[in-house]
Each structure stands twice: as C-alpha cells, then as structure tokens.
C-alpha cells in the first residue's frame, strides 16, 4: 500500500504543472474572449470592463492562476462566461463521458479479448484471418467515418439504435457511440491478445501443464491466458484514460453532452477555468488508471508482486 500512496503523492506536482501549463496555454491564445462573445455587435466599454474584471481577464497570468487555485482549494472551480458554475457543469458532463467511456471499454474488453482468444487458438484458420483483416480495416478508417456511417446505417436506416442524444439513458443511448469509440481500441486488444496467446501457447510451462494431463480448458484459461493478459491489461488501463479524452469526435457526432464536447467548446471560447478543470480531471484519471494497471500486474503475475516486496 505504500507503493500506492507513493504513486498518489507523485500526482501532486503533476497536478500543479499541468494546470499551470494549460492555464498559460489558454492565456496565450490570441484575441479577447469577452469581445468575441458579442459577435458583430458593439459593446460599451463599461460592459467590457465589468466582464473582464469578473473573470480576472484584466490581470496578469500569474494573478489569474492564483485566483483560480485559491478558488479550487475553497472548492470553487469558477464559472463559465454564461455564469454556470464549472463544478456543476463538470458533474453533469462527467457522468455522460464516463458512461460512454465505460461502454466503449467494456466492449473493448469483452469483444476484444474474445476475438483475440478465438484468433489465437485457431491460428491461421478462417477466424484468425477474419479477425486480422477486420481489425486492420478498423484501425485504418478514421473515427468520424466509422461514426457517421454507423449513425446513418445502424441508427437512421435500420433503426436499431437511437441516432443521437441521451434520451434513452444508459445503456440504450450509449451502445452505438460506445461501439464506435471502442472500435479502435478493440482492434488493438484483439491483436495483442492473439499475439500474446500464440506466444504463450508455445511456452515451456504450457507444455508442462499439458503434460501433467490438465484439460485444454484449464491450460488455456488458467495458465496461458492469464499470462497473455499482462500486455492487454496495460493497454486497457491506459486506454480508459484515452477513451475519456478521446470522446471529442464521438460525442460530437452523437450529440452527447460530455467532457469532450465541453473541452472543444471551451477552447473556442477561451474559457481557461473550464479547460483547466477538465484537463485536471483527465490527468487524475490517467494517474488512477495507471495505478490500477500496476496493481493488477501483481494479481496476474506473482513474480512482479514478489519482486516489489
């Protein structure tokens, strides 16, 4: 557990460095966000001054960042230019993205490992060839092409899924976007599982296990697969963070009001506090996901656990 605490402590400098970096980057964007809000209409100087003061835009970067951080420690993440509290906004949107990412992740995990095992056990067979060809195709096609095609064909023409929005809640509204978002990772999971399994099936300890007279199911399931999953788990852990961050395109196509959509809009509007809030959240998720992966290593492979102790 000391190891876990250490990993969490490492997160503190990462937290400050990332938030400051993001803040500085948003700050460095050209233009005046308040003026931009008004579009082509005139804005009286007084109104401009009021708005700039409200969002501390009239102060230097470090002071702005200081204001923001003081707020964060008081549990106040600031507010958007339309006056909505950022914490409230993230709360609503975080749930949408988490549901989407989780759907995609489960899809990757179950279908990806399933296909990988299938291909790995029947190496060179028809199933193997089909999985290899299919995954190559998915990796090659950009997400938005897969997304729009799935939306039009499966959603609109066949009516199997809702075309957009969150009306039907989880899982209904999240199945199609989840599969689209997860398709890329799924291809990697399937290929990793397959390769790793093929290698392990040739390893000495598998031969030993078979020689001991264990059933094929036990040999594959308990011995070969367990070891084969180490690289897969590494990938799945990191990928959960990726999914959270990579939801921008998918959320856009399927009109899911999640974090990805928010980041996109907030960068356009130069809303520093919102962007920093979201990115901080994503950094935390990455750190936690990596931590989870490290801990899982120990479960899958006793040697790693003992080496650490």
């Amino acid at each position, binding site marked *: 557990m000391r190891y876990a605490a250490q990993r969490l402590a490492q997160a503190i400098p990462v937290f400050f460095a990332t938030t400051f970096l993001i803040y500085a980057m948003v700050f460095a964007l050209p233009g005046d966000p308040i003026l931009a809000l008004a579009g082509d209409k005139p804005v009286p100087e007084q109104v401009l001054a*009021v708005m700039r003061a409200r969002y501390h835009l009239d102060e230097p970067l470090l002071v702005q960042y200081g204001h923001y951080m003081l707020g964060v420690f008081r549990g106040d993440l600031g507010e958007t230019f339309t006056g909505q509290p950022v914490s409230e906004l993230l709360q609503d949107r975080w*749930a949408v993205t988490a549901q989407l990412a989780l759907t995609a992740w489960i899809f990757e995990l179950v279908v990806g490992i399933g296909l990988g095992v299938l291909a790995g056990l029947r190496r060179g067979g028809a199933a193997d060839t089909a999985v290899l060809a299919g995954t190559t195709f998915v990796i090659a096609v950009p997400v938005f092409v897969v997304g729009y095609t799935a939306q039009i064909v499966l959603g609109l023409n066949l009516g199997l899924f809702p075309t957009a929005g*969150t009306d039907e809640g989880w899982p209904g509204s999240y199945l199609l976007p989840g599969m689209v978002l997860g398709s890329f990772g799924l291809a990697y999971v399937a290929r990793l599982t397959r390769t790793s399994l093929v290698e392990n099936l040739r390893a000495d300890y598998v031969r030993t296990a078979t020689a001991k007279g264990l059933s094929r199911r036990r040999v594959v399931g308990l011995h070969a697969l367990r070891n084969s999953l180490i690289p897969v788990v590494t990938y799945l852990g990191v990928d959960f963070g990726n999914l959270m961050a990579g939801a921008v395109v998918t959320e856009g196509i399927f009109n899911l009001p999640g974090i990805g959509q928010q980041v996109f809009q907030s960068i356009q509007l130069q809303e520093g506090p919102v962007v920093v809030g979201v990115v901080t959240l994503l950094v935390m998720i990455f750190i936690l996901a990596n931590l989870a992966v490290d801990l899982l290593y120990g*479960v899958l492979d006793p040697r790693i656990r003992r080496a650490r102790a």
Partner: protein
Amino acid sequence: MRVTRSRAAALAVAAIMLSGGCGGGSSSDGGGGDKAANAFSVALTEPDHLTPGNTSSSYSLTVLDALFDTPVAIDPATGKPQMRAAESVTSTDQKVWTIKIKPGRKFSNGEPVTAQSFADSWNATAYGPNGWTNNYYFDKIEGYDELNPESGEPSTDKLSGLKVVDDTTLEVTLTAPFSQFPITLAWIAFAPMPKAAFDDLKAYDQAPIGNGPFVLDGAWEHDKQIKVKRSPTYTGERAAKADEVTFKIYASRDTAYTDLRAGRVDLQLTIPPASAPEAKNLLGDRFVATAGGTMDYLGFPVYDKRFANPDLRKAFSMAIDRQAIVDAVYNGTFKPMASLLAPLVPGYRENACGEACTYDPAKAKALFDQAGGFSGTLNLWFSNADPSYEQWMTAIANQLKQNLGIADIKFRKIPASDYLSTLRAHKQDGPYRNNWVMDYPSPQNYLESMWGEGNRMGWENKEFLDLIHQANTAPTFDESLPLYQKAEDIALAEMPMIPLWNWQDQIGYSNRLSGVNVTPYSANLDAISVKQG
C-alpha cells in the same frame, strides 16, 4: 496477507471506476419522445442566457420569443411594427414617446404586467455594472450615460428618460428625435421582467418568468433540453395551440438534421446549407427557405490610400460573380445582393446598386485600369469562425486574379475571437469580410450601424450623415424611408463596402406538425399544432 491486500486494492479501484461510471447517469426520463401527447420538439443550440436583456444569440431568442411578449412585434408581411404587449406607441416630436401598455396582462407567476415592469427591466439592462449584452440598445434614451460612465461606478441605476406615469403608461424621453423608435421595441431587450426577478438575477437567468404564451416547465437542463408548456395566465393574442414544446439541444446542426430525418425531433430552424438539396427532396413542402436579415459584405480599408479611389472599389465589385460563389459554397441557398439592405427591410430596392453590383469582367478590368490598378500584395481578411468563409474568399481571390489581373493575393485568416478587435483597430490592410445581423428591420439599423460615424472602413461623408440624421428625425416612419434610400445611394456610389449576399434560413419539420410559419422575426411556436393519431 500481502496477496489479498493488493488484490483487494485492485478490486477497490475497479469498483470505484465502475461505480463512478454508472452512478451519475441513469437519470433519463425519456426526453422528447412523447409522441402521443399534444407536444412537439424543436432542435436548438445551447442558449447563452435566458434573461431578455442579456442575450442576442438566435438560439436564446427562439426560447425567449416563446416566453415573452415584447411591447411591439413586427408584421412579417410589411416589416412594420404591430402592437403586442403595448396598446400604442406615440409621439408628437419623435423625442418624447408615450407607450400605453395593454391592461390586465399577467406574468406566468400571476404578477400583473405594468409600466413599471418594463421600466425595471430596461433599467437593469442599461445599467453598466450588470454587464448585459443588450446594454447598448438603450443608448438613445436620456440618462444612459449616467448608467455607463467612462470610469468608476455609476451614480444612479435608473434611466432619467423613463417615467412611469401610471400602471399602463410609460413615457420615454430620447436624447434626440428618432423616427425608428417604435420598431426597436420589438427587440427582446425591451421585454418586461417581474419584480420576482430582481431578488436573484442569477437564478432568474436559469428560470425566467415571462409574460408570453409559454412558461418554463422544469429546470433548464444545460446541453440537453429546455421544456416549456402553455402558460396558465396568458391572455394575449398568441395563445399556444400545443400543450408542450421541448427544445432539444444539439451541438451540431448536422446531428440535429439526422435526428429530424429519424423523426426524433419535429422542427429544425437551421438545416445546414450542404444538406439543403437533400432536405428539399426528402421533406417536400415541409422544407422552407426564408430570407433572413443577415448580410455579408466585403469592406475596404478606405483609410489606406491604395483603396481610396471609389472606381477601384467599384471595379472589385464588378469583378465578383456573386451567383457563382453562392451556388458553389452555399448550394444556391443564399441570395446575391445588389443592395445594402436585406430584402425584408422596408425601403429595400432590388437593384439599388445597379451596374456596380453586376458581374461584368470586361468593364471591371477597364475601370480597374482607369483607376490606376493595384500593385503589391493584396491581403484578404476574414475570421476562422466558419470554414465557408475561406471557401468564398478563395473564390473571390480567383476571380480578382482572373478578371483584374491581380497576381499577388494573400489570405489573412484571423482567429474568430480576435477578428473584430482587429477590424476595430483598423489593422486590416486589404478587403475584409464584414457581416451584419439585423436587430430590427429598419434601413437605419444597417446604414447607421455600418456606414455611420466611426465605421470600420474609415469612410467619411458628410452628406450621408446629414441624410441619416434627417431620416432619424423625420416625422413618420414612412417619411423616413426615402431619406434613408438617398443615403444608401451615396454609400453605393462611393462603395466603401460591397454588398455580397443575403443569408437564408432553411427550415424543415416532421409530418406531425401543421401551422408552421417561421418568419425572420419569430418561429411562431404558438401557432403550431400537432396532428393527433
């Protein structure tokens, strides 16, 4: 021991991840799928605010138009004011205006709508420290400067030009005679607000209480939906036919259009131009295109001596094939313009510009050479707010190259957030995209705002300003129009800014709806009925 501990930790982390994912989200209540009820849904983009004084975005206006009655409305047939919450708006000298309020009207919380409700709302909007978007609409009313001092806090929060005579009479004193005043009262910023609003303006912005045909039904669910239902207290002319309307919020127009095709949303006010031909096929007469008040122009930095010659500017105008660009970039959905005003504005003349806006490459080249031509780099300025801007600017560059022989053309694409401050600071050293979204259908709104004092082109013409002033002080709206037209003629003859095209809105709706009558001024949601069965 160690084994079980790390196993437990792994499980705990997994459990947290799972519960974090599922915990927040299963609060779905079916959204806009009430097919059986007398209800319909409208595709919308997330509004910025729902306080009438604090928004000018078209999405907010769609909602606020359903929630509020402004003093005046605009007759879509003539573009002239017709009374709504007001009974009459009159003046003898165009400077002091008397607004009579229709008696006996109520806000949806039961509070009576009085002259005071209007005065309160206008004062709050004009009060500088509130920082509301529509603040400048009140700059013609006496006392505006005291509420918006150059520096420091204002000494008062009431416009001295507003006098509540009695419950139904409001007297407004302007700083100068202004013949267009009644039509400006159709703008949402002139809607009334109840006393209840001023206890907590922030809360009001999330849950406005209005005097219109609909009333908010439940909380504004940001980025998801806004539900409204028929107002129980409404006694005006716009009594709603439907029981409920759900505004479903979309981040992209394309997705909204897909949902319209899938029958998941009933009315879309903004079909993307790229989908217009398909929508026409698919929806038949449930696809409607209406001319809007928005215009695109190409402005010149007249303060730069290379662009000082009006003949050169005219040559540019004649070298541009507006129809070809509109066809290529906007699928023919926008309308090429030979006038500075949009077609729906009273006083609009179809071909006010004449030869100078007619595509004629040979004459353009002759005029161009005669005016001394152009040497050096021609910079074309626009913002990155929409990819179509770059498309039509590229087309214009090609036409200028081909028809006038300008070889060295460069693009200056500016981030949208920086574009207007660039124009304001006169940093543009070449032709630039200029756009005007109409506030109210009056020639004054276009001409004075865009060609008047302190304009972006640096163009100065005393005769033009005199005519605008005469028109503003004309005794009636009708008498002001010929004066505005004379001013327009001067602006066209000098051509500091070229008219390009007028925007059109593409509207589509499902076969469940009837009575759809969307105008540039209102979506008229109250008039829409839902077919039963």
